């Protein structure tokens, strides 16, 4: 073998080549592993979060505004009914860090977050004093006002909200409750016209919104 010195060189070269290809394969393996995401899981989580805050979603009062009662009533069945993720995926919905719904055992998974407003409308009643004046300005904005007209005290002919006639009967409005939609962007000022109006002739119920900002977190573990 004295004459085969370059055979050794060749073997050395081949060993080097093998090493390089092995390293290349390992690096490629790592790159492939690094590039592995869960796109379907993420898509499901995004879709579910979007449905939850959508204007026509099960929770929303309007876009990105959630109704607190509906948030409290949300259950696994309702989340499943949205059909946003496959049946065997586990889902957790959190509002401000507090788990509202969880199906199965969520470990890890993909989380998406949405900023939303949770609104709680708590109806309040007020009996405006109508002795010597005919206007009342409600303290808070509200989308609607329920005007309850008592059968006894006086006769209400016209009710105006911010100058616009919302209820009118020249013979006097019949006793009962009338629901009036008002702009929720201005403070409603109601004025009453009629005969012998006194305090207690009308009772107003309105629903001011108590809102808080929350982070809606949806985690999907497929």
């Amino acid at each position, binding site marked *: 073998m004295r004459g085969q010195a*370059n055979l050794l060189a060749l*073997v050395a070269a*081949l060993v080097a080549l093998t090493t390089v290809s092995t390293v290349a394969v390992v690096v*490629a393996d790592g790159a492939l592993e690094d590039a592995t995401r*869960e*796109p379907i899981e993420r*898509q499901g989580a995004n879709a579910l979060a979007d449905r939850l805050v959508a204007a026509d979603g099960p929770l929303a009062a309007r876009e990105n505004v959630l109704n607190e009662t509906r948030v409290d009533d949300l259950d696994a069945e309702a989340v499943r009914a949205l*059909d946003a993720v496959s049946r065997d995926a586990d889902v957790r919905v959190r509002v401000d860090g507090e788990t509202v719904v969880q199906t199965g055992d969520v470990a890890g998974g993909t989380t998406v977050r949405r900023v939303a407003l949770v609104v709680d409308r708590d109806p309040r009643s007020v009996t405006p004093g109508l002795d010597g004046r005919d206007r009342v300005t409600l303290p808070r904005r509200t989308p609607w006002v329920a005007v309850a007209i008592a059968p006894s005290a006086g006769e209400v002919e016209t009710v105006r909200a911010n100058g616009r006639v919302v209820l009118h009967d020249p013979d006097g409005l019949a006793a009962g409750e009338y629901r009036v939609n008002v702009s929720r962007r201005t403070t409603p000022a109601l004025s009453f016209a009629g005969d012998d109006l006194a305090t207690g002739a009308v009772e107003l119920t309105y629903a001011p919104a108590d809102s808080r900002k929350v982070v809606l977190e949806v985690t999907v573990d497929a």
Partner: protein
Amino acid sequence: MTNPTDPTDPAAPTAQTAPSAPTGAPALGRDDRALSTVVGKTLELGLLALFVGLLVSTFYGGVLPEYRASAANAVADRTTASVATELEAAVPSTGGVGVASDDGVQSVVVEQELDVPRTIRTDAYRLRLEAGSLVLDHPVDEFSRRVPLALPDSVARVEGEARSGETVVIVVESTADGLVVRLEGR
């Protein structure tokens, strides 16, 4: 290469190449020196052929198909996810825009082209909408996918299918029953 002063060197190939003719050994011993390079090159050639064969069989036998499969899996996942996202985004929100959804005045026509890979692992595939789900139908079952679509209640049904080579278009139309989401290939 060969050292002429070394007596053992010419003797080694002689003993191998002509063991049956010991009488001609001294004569061949001198002429034999040229064989050393031939043997050397042949060995090198054999070694290289072995190496290349080993490398090719390793790569094509295991590493490459595995990589192609995992890449195809990832592409199938991403294609399905992006088509589903586009489908969900293509449906307009008809709630809470000031018009009641049942009075029949809203007419919606959406057409949106999608960019999808032509092939997944060199095979053409189909995208299909059925029963509220998006189905990616690949000849190899391992790369087929099905994801549910979260669509608003205003969507009455989803239908249609497209092949991967075509221009894939999402069409959303108003009908009497509600919105219809369709996949079309053009």
